[in-house]
């Protein structure tokens, strides 16, 4: 029932999906061509979040490096970090990505835990580090509302695009400005209401272009635990995992082309 879904998820509801129909310009693109063997070997994915618990079984040893942002006044620095997660959220995202793309290696960029006033700056600094340190895809299940950092995020998103780095961002649940999920070159994701990781939808009407599995997801959490979680921030890593497979199978594909392939292989809407 469409009435049971929030605004950003509404286009993906069962009785609205017919509206997602459009011309099919990529008929020869199917999932087996797009994803190859599905292992995503060698792709580097950065998780900018609350940290990743390196020895969590769901992460399967895929964590290659952990850093965190340290703030000193207006100065932000990246320092090495332990493979830990103060919340569990980053581990949840990493676990989803590893489940879909087991050959991918993960970089954890912990941007939480700094002084709250600097959180937007910490986030931007962490994103910049990920772009410059070999990430092919960056999963951003968080966003900043800081208007003062609008230009900074805009610049970072453009730099990512020109550096061939794909940014996958969770949409904010309410219609408030949130960066970088509202910028055009990123892949913006909301949750749909189908409990199936193999189901994702493409919405030709931005800003939120993809609907993915984010309702009642069984995820890894801190202290080697698991919980069931709901939110757009669990939908984004499903798209990140799929994008990692595409990038492994088609290393020459640009962020724009990866987005196109994900749209072309999205679940048919009737």
């Amino acid at each position, binding site marked *: 029932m469409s009435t049971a879904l929030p605004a950003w998820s509404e286009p993906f509801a069962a009785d609205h999906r017919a509206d997602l129909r459009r011309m099919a310009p990529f008929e020869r693109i199917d999932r087996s061509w797009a994803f190859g063997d599905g292992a995503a070997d060698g792709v580097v994915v950065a998780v900018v979040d609350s940290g990743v618990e390196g020895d969590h079984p769901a992460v399967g040893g895929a964590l290659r490096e952990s850093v965190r942002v340290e703030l000193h006044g207006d100065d932000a620095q990246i320092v090495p970090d332990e493979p830990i997660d103060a919340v569990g959220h980053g581990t949840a995202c990493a676990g989803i990505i590893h489940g879909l793309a087991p050959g991918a290696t993960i970089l954890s960029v912990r941007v*939480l*835990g700094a002084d709250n006033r600097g959180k937007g700056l910490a986030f931007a600094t962490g994103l910049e580090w990920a772009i410059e340190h070999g990430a092919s895809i960056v999963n951003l*299940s968080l966003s900043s509302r800081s208007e003062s950092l609008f230009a900074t995020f805009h610049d970072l998103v453009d730099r990512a695009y020109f550096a061939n780095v794909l940014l996958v961002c*969770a949409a904010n649940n309410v219609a*408030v400005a949130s960066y970088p999920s509202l910028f055009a070159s990123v892949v913006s994701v909301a949750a749909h*209401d189908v409990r199936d990781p193999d189901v994702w939808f493409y919405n030709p009407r931005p800003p939120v272009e993809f609907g993915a599995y*984010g309702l009642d997801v069984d995820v890894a959490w801190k202290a080697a635990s698991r919980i*069931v979680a709901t939110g757009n*921030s669990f939908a984004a890593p499903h798209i990140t995992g799929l994008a990692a497979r595409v990038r492994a199978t088609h290393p020459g594909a640009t962020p724009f082309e990866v987005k196109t392939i994900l749209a072309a292989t999205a679940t048919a809407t009737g």
Partner: protein
Amino acid sequence: MTGAPAGPDPLVPTLHAVAVRVEAARRLVPPAGTAVLRSIVEATAALFGAEAASLALHDPATGRLVFQVAAGEQGQAVVGLAIGSSEGVAGYVFSTGQPLALSDVARDARFGREAAEQTGYVPRSLIAVPLVDDVGILGVLEVLDKRGDGAFDLRDVELATVFARQATVAIRASRIERDTAALLRAVLVAVDGAAPADSAADPEGAALDALIAAEVARLDADGDDPLWAIADEIARLRTTDPGQLELVRDLLAVLVRRAERGRLGRARSADAEAR
């Protein structure tokens, strides 16, 4: 003060005017304090058919999130708990602005134990949403344990998010009221130099409140200022039958129009005299 004899500070009349407005506002709407927060958590629990709800606000002085109020018997243990502003589920939501819903929280013993150690209560399911408006994030609202069998769904998350936004507006309004009174106290002390000798001995600011009361009493004594009578009458309207409020509103509109005409008339005659 040294040097020139102290004349009346030109700021004082302005402060008087501010004091009048603040006091009028206080009479019209009594200070809400934690009543606003309490009504928010109670409404939250009722709205979502939840066993409990709790509300944590960020304390800029300590940088921590402090649980202020809770609804529901189970939720009370959390009141007073202070956590790091990016710790745990509430900290994550506060730091990122991303709402979350978790269910089967108690299923995993490790996670459940940690939560229980902090709050003495392990909910089966919860929604945590930011208390956010256009200005920024004030804290986190949590809805705990939906009654019956169901878990929270995506729609619940959105409704809680929208409701929290409204709640934030209410909290911010009650803070402005509190902050205005505090600001006025500070300015009166600065201008009149009437601070208590040892402010540490008067942490509640009772002496300053007395100072404000004296200011207002002096204004009251100015005599026939009709403002107080109107403020008190309007305050009484709070208990009036809503049907009669329409009539009162119309009457007030007439009064405002007459006052406008009077002011224009005075301005014209003053203008004429000047010529």
